């Protein structure tokens, strides 16, 4: 079977009006506007296999949302092609729309003044979900996300996190095969984030839902996705295992040694990130790791030594700052 999501050479160029200073220019711009072309997404290709969860990373304005909008049929690409479940998404074929879901921000699916249950009923009708399936899913999803007692409360009385959970339930009711989650945990507290992550993972495992996920929180991505696609300034930077990200983008590893008798001068070994009487953390170039480690072991009585990849946040930050 073909991969449910295929992007090949997706490109989106926006025409942006040039704003000029000066009153005269502003008046002129009312009649004839000059435009500048902005390439929001440049030749992006990737595939997502059935039942995969892929994290989609990139700094703000990198083109993540633009890409998701093309994959959900909200934007027409300037060039390139895409297939979601075999359909060109921007044709917005109803059969396709019935099989995907998009969660983009808060309260998009929900009727602000009414209990969530009413909005769910509307979605049930939109997607033609049979009664029995509907009831079962509501009960199950609400229980998993711990919102059963909130189903009859108006959305406006719910907290941000509770609303997001309802939003996700609404999006999952019709049993979509592919789900696009744009920042599903933004603004949620840690417990809520964890709950939402677990829910997405369960849906993926139990129902085989394919997920493309963007998030600001590395914790989200590392908890849910084994594979990441990174874009920056509209171009694809990396597509592969999450674990490989550090290897690819970070030229350093960290070595943490628990010891009390290291020499004061460690400048020949690497950059000292942290030093306490009992512990030293060093940043060491990747190809010198084993050499430095053995020199450390030789120079002092070491009670513990750990070689670690740098924190994912740092790697990502480095990726984005480098490419800018």
């Amino acid at each position, binding site marked *: 079977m073909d991969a449910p999501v295929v992007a090949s050479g997706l490109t989106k160029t926006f025409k942006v009006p040039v704003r000029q200073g000066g009153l005269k220019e502003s008046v002129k711009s009312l009649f004839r506007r000059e435009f500048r072309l902005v390439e929001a997404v440049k030749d992006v290709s990737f595939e997502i296999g059935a039942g995969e969860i892929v994290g989609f990373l990139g700094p703000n304005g990198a083109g993540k949302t633009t890409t998701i909008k093309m994959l959900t049929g909200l934007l027409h690409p300037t060039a390139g092609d895409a297939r979601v479940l075999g359909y060109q998404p921007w044709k917005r074929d109803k059969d396709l*729309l019935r099989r995907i879901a998009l969660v*983009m921000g808060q309260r998009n699916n929900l*009727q602000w003044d009414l209990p969530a249950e009413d909005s769910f009923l509307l979605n049930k009708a939109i997607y033609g979900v049979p009664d029995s399936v509907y009831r079962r899913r509501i009960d199950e999803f609400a229980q998993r996300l711990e919102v059963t007692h909130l189903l009859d409360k108006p959305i406006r009385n719910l907290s941000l996190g509770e609303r997001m959970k309802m939003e996700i339930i609404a999006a999952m009711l019709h049993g979509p095969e592919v789900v696009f989650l744009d920042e599903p945990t933004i603004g949620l507290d840690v417990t809520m984030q964890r709950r939402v992550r677990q829910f997405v993972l369960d849906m993926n495992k139990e129902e085989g839902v394919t997920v493309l996920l963007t998030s600001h929180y590395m914790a989200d991505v590392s908890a849910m996705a084994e594979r990441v696609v990174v874009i920056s300034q509209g171009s694809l930077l990396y597509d592969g295992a999450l674990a490989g990200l550090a290897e690819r983008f970070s030229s350093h590893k960290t070595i943490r040694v628990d010891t009390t008798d290291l020499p004061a001068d460690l400048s020949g070994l690497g950059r000292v990130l942290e030093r306490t009487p009992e512990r030293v953390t060093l940043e060491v170039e990747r190809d010198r790791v084993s050499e430095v480690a053995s020199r450390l072991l030789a120079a002092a009585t070491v009670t513990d030594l750990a070689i670690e990849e740098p924190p994912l946040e740092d790697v990502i930050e480095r990726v984005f700052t480098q490419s800018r």
Partner: protein
Amino acid sequence: MTTENPFSLLSYYRAGARVGFQRDLQYRMATFMVLVAFLFEPVVYLSVWTAVARAQGGMVGGFDEGQLAAYYVVWTLVRIYNTAFDPKAWEWRIRDGRINTFLSQPVHMFHRDFSFFMGSKIAWTLMWIPIAAVLTLIFRPSIAWHPVNVGLFLVAIWGGYAVRFLVLYVLGMINFWTTRGSAIFGIVTALEMIFSGRLVPLQLLPAWAQDAAAWMPFRWTFQFPIEVLIGRLDTAQMLAGVGYQAAWALGLGLLFTVVWRAAIRRYEAVGN
């Protein structure tokens, strides 16, 4: 809009109308106050025209006091059936991203909005009943309770709703091109005020204005349903009116599908 399975669309309309109904029933106090606020407008017009009729010896433009009263009492119900999706609201829908969710769903948002307002109208009508009772006691309107009139009135208020909903929906498409549509909405609202029969029965307008009104959809949304219920039209005229409503709804529906396609093409090109 097309190629829906009629059965599933019906169940969708039921669900959509339910949401509209529930929401307005939940805010019944607010809805009731809005209804009461609505009343000032027709009471003002009625007072003015009653004063004119009295100054003219009891009749003005073929309306006596009782008929004027009937006109403006039925006005209050027709006014309810004239509320529809505000063209300005498209700006919000686009800006807050809701439109993305709706576009990614397999049912056209036209049905969402149309059914929502249908449900809301039922809630409003329920709350209108006590108001109508009080108005009837005060103004003693003369209503044509003939079953043909009542039956066709039920058709005509919904027909009027459909036409007005489409007019506003087409206008709302302007928001896909500019955020400064409010000037155009203002002009249309003013035209509608005069040429729909909302301000005054069209018979009281100068002849040229009556001719102009014949070219606009507005009279079919407002004056026509009123006239059906107050018995100023014969059966043939009533049926013709319903025909005009259907023709306008059809024409506007076609116009909408064309404009909608252009709007979405533009939206797909620029996003937001």
